[in-house]
């Protein structure tokens, strides 16, 4: 019996200058799903992500994470359940060493001493970054930073992982490492990305967000083979990608 990991209904949000960023978003994701969130720049994808853990406050609509509705009182638990990996890793790795960054989250949850240490090591091992523990973030490569940022979030044992452009700026090898990593994680994932091959390889389902609303929602292969749909929303398949040809290789909804 699959449970609902995320349930967004009618989400609305406008910037201080009046610009409507989210105009009624509906989205339901089941536990264990991997969903790619696609769309042109400025569609509201990052803004939507920032609503999921209460950093931005909606003006209308509801958000439910698992069985918990998003509200002021629940913010602590919500922020444990939703792990957000930011687009710019320098914003997220703000402590002098990676180890301290990874410890920051669980320490805020109350872990101390050996328990905290164990959690840090567990998270770093999960992203194969154990050797980065005492390194300062600004001395790491892009791929190492991305894995470290992921570890900071995994350390809180979230139920829902939201990644904002995780493969941007990575060289092919680092990208492959990241992809394999995400493949192994069984946590429910929302991956905001322009990297359509990544979406095709990892996510059985894709959602297109444009103008602050969901304009398409379905199996990734179907979405990516609909060239007119892609064109309407400023998306384009990279040269040489033929989703139809790999239809049998991509993940499918159970």
């Amino acid at each position, binding site marked *: 019996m699959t449970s609902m990991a995320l349930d967004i209904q009618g989400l609305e949000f406008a*910037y*201080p200058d009046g610009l409507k960023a989210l105009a009624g978003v509906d989205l339901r994701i089941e536990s264990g799903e991997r969903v790619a969130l696609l769309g042109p720049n400025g569609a509201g994808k990052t803004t939507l992500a920032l609503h999921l853990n209460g950093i*931005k*406050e909606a003006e209308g609509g509801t958000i439910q994470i698992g069985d918990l509705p998003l509200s002021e009182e629940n913010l602590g638990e919500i922020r444990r359940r939703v792990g957000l990996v930011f687009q710019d890793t320098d914003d997220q790795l703000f402590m002098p060493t990676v180890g301290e960054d990874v410890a920051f989250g669980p320490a805020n949850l109350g872990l101390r001493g050996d328990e905290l240490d164990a959690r840090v090591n567990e998270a770093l091992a999960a992203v194969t970054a154990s050797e980065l523990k005492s390194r300062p973030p600004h001395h790491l490569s892009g791929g190492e930073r991305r894995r470290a940022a992921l570890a900071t979030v995994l350390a809180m044992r979230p139920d829902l992982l939201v990644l904002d452009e995780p493969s941007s700026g990575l060289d092919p090898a680092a990208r492959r490492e990241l992809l394999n990593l995400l493949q192994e994680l069984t946590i429910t994932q929302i991956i905001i990305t322009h990297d359509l091959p990544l979406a095709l390889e990892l996510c059985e389902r894709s959602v297109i967000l444009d103008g602050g609303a969901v304009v398409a929602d379905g199996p990734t292969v179907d979405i990516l083979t609909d060239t007119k749909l892609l064109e309407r929303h400023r998306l384009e398949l990279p040269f040489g990608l033929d989703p139809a040809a790999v239809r049998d290789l991509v993940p499918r909804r159970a």
Partner: protein
Amino acid sequence: MHAPDGFLNAGTAVATGAVSLGVIGTAVHQSKATLKEKQVPLAGIVAAFIFAAQMFNFPVAAGTTGHLLGGALAAILLGPSIGAIVVTIVVVVQALAFADGGLTALGYNVLNMAIVTAFGGWALYRLFRRILPNTAAGVVAATGLAGGGSVILSSMAFSLEWLFGATAPIPFDTVLGAMVGVHLFIGIGEGVISGLAMGAILVARPDLIYGARDLDRAQMRDRTPIGARTLVISGILVALVFGTVVSQFAADSPDGLERVAADTGIAANAQDHTLDRFVFADYATSGIGNEALSLAIAGAAGVLITLLVGFGLFAAVRGSRPRRDQPSGV
């Protein structure tokens, strides 16, 4: 500049240390209300910005370069208390982690480079804003003038510390003349760079500037240039401040009064004031051509600095409210 250990005597190090601790302690306490938790990473990153900005040089003349101090700019951007705190942290970390500035010199290094520049600079900024038009150009000009003035105030403060804590037989008036004279030029550089940087920030994100939050949209867009009259008044004010320095050069040549005193034998007694030897450092007053005038100028400089820094502190503690609603950061 980051003075090393041993430059001023122990008494001065302790006294300035106590003053610095008191002022920064007050600033921390007072800013607990305004330094919302949101601003802690912000203050840290701005501190990094100031630190980095101090490392880079800007051209002054014929290829020689100068460095920014940034205290006044920090105060105008973040508010005087947080500005002073931020620059203090820069100075302290420079001493502890980069061996720049003596550990026992922290008292006067913090006082001169963080407290006097931030609070004194803020006071100068408020004064100049009052006489300059309430426009973006006014903010830029006030920032520039405050930036330049803060550097000169800082050098005056150091000279006053020399008066009480000199460890070398160089008279106070020589130090004052040299320090302020040199910093007049450095101040021009700091003023120009601060003003130009403020101009760039105003164009893009005026809402980030603490010292400009009283301007509404219309005033911000007002492009009328600053009139000659206001610039002249500002110039006169600045000149008055530095007049204390210029008059130092007159102090060394005996004036009419002194000649009279020498003729009637009063001067010999006047030079032997034992009282000031208890207060001022052994060396600071010997060798001065006209001790009374020098000390009077020192007094005036001291009063000026105290007034300005005090005004800056008072304004910070009072925490003036912005006159228009700030859009709350989401």
